[in-house]
């Protein structure tokens, strides 16, 4: 079983997000970057499957050299090798097209991603990748089991879940519950330094969208306290002051 895990390099979950004074650029200085939490679940699952089937796990990432610590982290957790497409991950179509190009020259039985990255929150790279490769994609998989060439998954839907099945190859995106995060051990960390990390050039992709600026949610006015004894007045207050109920 050959498995590919697509990983993203995102601001640490505790990071304060700041933009330049004109709101045109994201300020990355002072921000620690981590392996996207959902991608980490996907990687854990991939390693479990690889262990059970004597398979291999390759991680792929689109980004410049500054993202290598995140790739090494994935190798320390247990991935066998890595590919970095040396380019700025401009938008989802660009990233998906890079990964698709790599998959076309080197095929995989299973491609795992996280259901969403915590920076752009768009959930579109895996879906676009699947579309470019002509493969099915399960976007909100809470579980994944393999029986021979068939994958079975619980996929989250509005107000519940559906049980879906599909033959390999396919793209599956990890949601909470698919696997536990794995913590790299000392041996993993040591061996990560020497595991193969191949750097490839990007393919050309037309520019269809452009981030023109950023904004922050409006700050809330200071909290209005309601005494605990008068808690019952909450709904009348909400009706009178906010008209939301």
């Amino acid at each position, binding site marked *: 079983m050959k498995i590919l895990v697509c990983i993203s390099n995102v601001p640490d979950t505790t990071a304060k997000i700041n933009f330049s004074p004109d709101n045109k650029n994201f300020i990355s200085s002072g921000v620690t970057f981590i392996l996207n939490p959902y991608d980490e679940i996907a990687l854990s699952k991939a390693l479990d499957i690889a262990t059970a089937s004597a398979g291999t796990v390759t991680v792929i990432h689109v980004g410049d050299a500054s993202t290598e610590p995140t790739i090494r982290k994935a190798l320390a957790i247990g991935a066998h090798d890595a590919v970095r497409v040396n380019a700025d991950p401009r938008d989802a179509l660009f990233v998906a097209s890079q990964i698709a190009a790599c998959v076309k020259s080197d095929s995989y039985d299973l491609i795992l991603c996280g259901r969403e990255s915590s920076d752009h929150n768009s959930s579109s790279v895996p879906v*676009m990748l699947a579309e470019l490769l002509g493969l099915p994609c399960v976007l909100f998989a809470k579980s994944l089991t393999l029986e021979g060439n068939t994958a079975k998954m619980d996929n989250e839907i*509005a107000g519940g879940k559906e049980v879906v099945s599909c033959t390999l190859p396919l793209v599956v995106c990890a949601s909470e*519950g698919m696997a536990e995060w794995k913590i790299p051990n000392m041996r993993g960390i040591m061996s990560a330094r020497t595991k193969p990390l191949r750097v490839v050039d990007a393919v050309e992709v037309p520019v269809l969208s452009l981030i023109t600026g950023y904004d922050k949610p409006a700050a809330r006015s200071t*909290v209005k306290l309601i005494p605990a004894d008068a808690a019952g007045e909450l709904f009348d207050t909400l009706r009178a002051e906010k008209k939301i109920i």
Partner: protein
Amino acid sequence: MSVLVYVENQDGKFRNAAFEALSFGNAIATSLGTGMIACSIGKVSDEELKCAGKYGASVILSASPELINPQVCSGILSKAAVSEKATVVIVPASFFGKAVAPRVAVKLKAAYGDNVVELPQMSSGFIVKKGAYSGKAFEYVELLSEVKVISLVPNSFKMVEKPVEIVIKTVDATVSDPEKALKVIDTVRNTNKVSLPDAEIVVSAGRGLKGPENWGMIEELASVLGAATACSKPVSDAGWRPHSEHVGQTGIAISPNLYIAIGISGAIQHLAGVSNSKVIVVINKDPEAPFFKAADYGIVGDAFEVVPKLIEAAKKFKAAGN
């Protein structure tokens, strides 16, 4: 030219997210000076199909393929977009819509604006506003291609009735390669429950509730208010509640009208997923809990005393015809 809107149904009934998408589409069509066409996929009665007319669609295309999955639906939508010369295609940013819209964009070689939260700026160019950094920010994205695909976050655009005469057109839908296709074997719905991402009111609880046996009062308050229930990450990690209720940076991001947080401290990762709620009410026994800084209303008190009072008050409030 036209604006094409995918109206998603659940068991044959259109969901609010579909009517919101139509209302949003109609506003865009009006500024572009074009008409709006709806597209429904799956078995839906004529009576239900006609509901799209209430929100401004003059035509609804209806397809009932033998198999429904994102690949099939994106095929139908992109064909419809071509035949109807759509320049804007709108899909609700639901679980299913998110698995469909990016495929439509790739098929149409169109720019994709995902998780859009308000009407695009169309005076010069076409710029959408979308949520980013898990609720910590918004991004403005210019869509440069002639055809644009947009997914609209549920509960971010109000339904607006604009009744027009509507014509139903059946379109055919053949599934290529059904053997290799993704198949749904079974569907399990949490019965009688409001779906979290679409909910207008969410009642959420955290580790302050001490254990799963204490969720009865949370469910009761939610049911009186017609709200969905949610929880913090440690609560679902401990198995007190299902993962599907976990909100925050690594859970579901929500934007209800009202978010009531009970016994939740307000960690940055939790706030990330809920800060786009219109009004936040926090109940916590610790007056120093960080969540109070991100709240509109706060009640400092013990959840086990405050929540029963809220249930009583909510019952009275509802009984008074609210």
